[in-house]
């Protein structure tokens, strides 16, 4: 007996799906977690010089995002808007990336203040950062145009996330093992060679996956005939209600005051291994949760799922916080550990939603821009979303570091010997306080304009307009096309 399935069209075939997944995996194939160790202990650049480089790089990062966003949005080639940048950014990025890991061989046995080494590193960092911005902005925009069908987009995001989770920690864990073996002289190779081998291998494989993706996929959402001006790009941001709601929600949630739960496991329970043990039952649930995404997306609106995921997670942690605070339960292993394990399992049930829905909201915001204004501005929209979060993160990391001092945390004390009051604060900063301090983030979500009905109407109209445009382009004269292009940018639709 057969069952009916979805009636929505699929556009992305098997090979392209594999390419999409490999591209997502490529982003996780790196040993970036060890970059600091590499610079401090292997390349050896003076800390003061590093501080200067960091400031300049951060300022350049904030400035170039806007320029690159405008440049990408104004691009029109026969291969699409984003694909040229993905390719043009990936190749220099890979070559530079490989040279990055060869610095110790180019400048062997040089002091931290050796200027040629510093200038080389500085220049490479700036160029690498610029190329990274191009590829990142292009890739994010590209992913929203790979298919015009929102459910298919969700499916691709979910599939790619599951595959990434399986492999994302492999290079780091493998490198960690080798690092320990080399540091303890079990394996007789030097650290520069180890870093170079892993770094270059990861860069090469990553680039191969990204280029494979580039050649096996295409943009399927048509851009406006004429390039939008800078004014149009900014207009697309400030009058894009879904995007503003998303930004406001992220901004309010970003004021979360928190410290890692690892501190709780070490300073209160005495061992970080408990964190691993508590996470074991939830581990398979994390992957299974992705299978809920598609049926839930068909049944409920993006808004409902967005709110539900937030409220569910908040409720769970507040429950743990409340129950843990009663009778000092947070210090009783036989109470708090099962509670945390149950919380993790229940929280992981919505993990798939947490990874897919925000990505889908960004994509819906881009489609909304096309529906409302007649043109898309993926790059500028993405840049503005990221810029605000970058600035906020910089502020909040400072605040969060001050907090530890304020709660009476004494550095260097033996594990488990902080005062009971401090221990409670450590528990609170890992459970309840982050939720309470970011609670306002859920409020804007209720004003998200794209309900199921509105969304369906939006996509139907978009589909009709896109079809009408292609029919128009078959027979229109150049003058008619020029007029149509102007009408598009002014948001005039037939």
């Amino acid at each position, binding site marked *: 007996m057969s069952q009916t*399935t979805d*009636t929505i*069209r699929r*556009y992305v075939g098997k090979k392209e799906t594999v390419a999409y997944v490999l591209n997502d995996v490529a982003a996780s194939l790196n040993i970036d977690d060890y970059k600091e160790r590499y610079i401090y202990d292997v390349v050896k650049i003076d800390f003061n010089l590093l501080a200067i480089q960091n400031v300049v790089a951060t300022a350049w990062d904030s400035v170039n995002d806007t320029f690159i966003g405008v440049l990408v949005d104004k691009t029109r*080639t*026969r*291969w699409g808007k984003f694909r040229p940048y993905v390719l043009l950014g990936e190749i220099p990025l890979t070559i530079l990336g490989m040279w990055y890991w060869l610095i110790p061989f180019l400048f062997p046995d040089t002091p931290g203040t050796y200027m040629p080494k510093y200038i080389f590193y500085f220049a490479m960092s700036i160029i690498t950062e610029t190329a990274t911005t191009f590829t990142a902005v292009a890739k994010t925009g590209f992913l929203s145009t790979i298919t015009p069908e929102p459910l298919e987009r969700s499916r691709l995001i979910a599939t790619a996330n599951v595959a990434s989770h399986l492999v994302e920690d492999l290079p780091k864990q493998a490198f960690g093992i080798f690092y320990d073996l080399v540091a303890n002289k079990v394996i007789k190779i030097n650290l520069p060679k180890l870093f170079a081998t892993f770094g270059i291998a990861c860069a090469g494989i990553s680039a191969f996956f990204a280029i494979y993706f580039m050649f096996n996929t295409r943009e399927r959402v048509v851009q406006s005939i004429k390039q939008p001006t800078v004014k149009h790009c900014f207009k697309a941001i400030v009058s894009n209600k879904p995007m503003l709601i998303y930004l406001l929600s992220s901004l309010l949630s970003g004021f979360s005051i928190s410290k890692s739960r690892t501190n709780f496991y070490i300073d209160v329970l005495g061992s970080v291994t408990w964190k691993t043990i508590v996470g074991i039952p939830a581990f398979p649930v994390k992957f299974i949760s992705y299978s809920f995404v598609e049926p839930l997306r068909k049944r409920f609106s993006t808004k409902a799922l967005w709110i539900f995921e937030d409220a569910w997670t908040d409720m769970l942690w507040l429950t743990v916080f409340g129950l843990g605070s009663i009778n000092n339960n947070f210090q009783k292993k036989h109470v708090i550990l099962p509670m945390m394990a149950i919380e993790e399992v229940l929280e992981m049930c919505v993990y798939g939603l947490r990874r897919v829905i925000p990505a889908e909201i960004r994509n819906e915001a881009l489609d909304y821009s096309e529906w409302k204004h007649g043109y898309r501005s993926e790059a500028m929209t993405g840049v503005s979303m990221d810029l605000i979060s970058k600035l906020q993160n910089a502020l909040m990391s400072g605040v969060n570091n001050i907090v530890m001092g304020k709660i009476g945390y004494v550095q260097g004390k033996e594990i488990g010997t902080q005062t009971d009051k401090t221990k409670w604060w450590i528990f609170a900063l890992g459970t309840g306080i982050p939720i309470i301090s970011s609670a306002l983030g859920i409020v804007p979500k209720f004003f998200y304009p794209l309900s199921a009905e509105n969304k*369906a109407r939006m996509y139907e109209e978009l589909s009709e307009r896109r079809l009408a445009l*292609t029919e128009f382009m078959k027979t229109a004269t150049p003058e008619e096309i020029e007029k149509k292009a102007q009408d598009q940018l002014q948001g005039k639709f037939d």
Partner: protein
Amino acid sequence: MADCPKCGEHLKLTDWKQHCPHCNCNVVIYDIQERLMKDADKAEVQHYYFQKKVDRLKASFVGSKLAVIRIFTSFIPLLAILVPWFRAEFREPFVEFDGFFSLFSVLDIMDSLNIDGILSLLNSTDGKASVICLIGAAVLFVLSLLLVLVRIFCITMACGKRGKQRMYFFDIALLVLCAIGSFLLLFIPQNPYFDVGIILAPIVYFILLCVSFGVDIAIYKKGIEVKHAQCFVGGIPVEEYFKMLEDGVPAEEIRQEMYRRLTEMQLQKEAELNKEVAQNE
């Protein structure tokens, strides 16, 4: 796309702009709808073949009550590791031990194990056969545990063409390995280095493997119905679509039929959505 979709002229690599240098048409937008539909036709046919595999995979795990029970009976034999393995007394060059040997005993004695001393017994006349039996039994049991894990993975293909033969092969191989391993443990020749008495875990393991085999036999006797989800190509059921292609129906006609069916489905969805909205109000 190397040729202009309107005039058919070849586009060089240096013709990067979105307008054709020969006829000035916008090569990106021109005819994109037809290209999208062709992409969709190909993707949906690929999805149909992939969906069949997914349906078989689903049926292997949850296609019937017995299939669900099989998931548990496949994992349960691994629990035999936790049961005490056998009663034993070990002397030099082994780590001295007298009692029920189990997984935890292995973990305890790991650091002080004299591997060289044990391996030197292979050259002795009075210990060679015994050590070979002991090591042989250990290898067979480790191999069978690995096979249990492989068998669990192969459940994903249990409803495939050779699924039945594959599952039976693993069930029988596991029973044989367990039986031979147990035989080796029970009939270790007398020697001055160790004695093995009552064996527990291998018996428990054997029983659990028999249960697992029994469930497999019951599943294949009763059968699992694989429910194939209906797939569509442009709104046309895939079987009908393949028939249209076989009958040589012109592509244009198929395309018109797709538009008609998709429009029907769209109107149906809208009606359902309006009904839901009306009910909520």
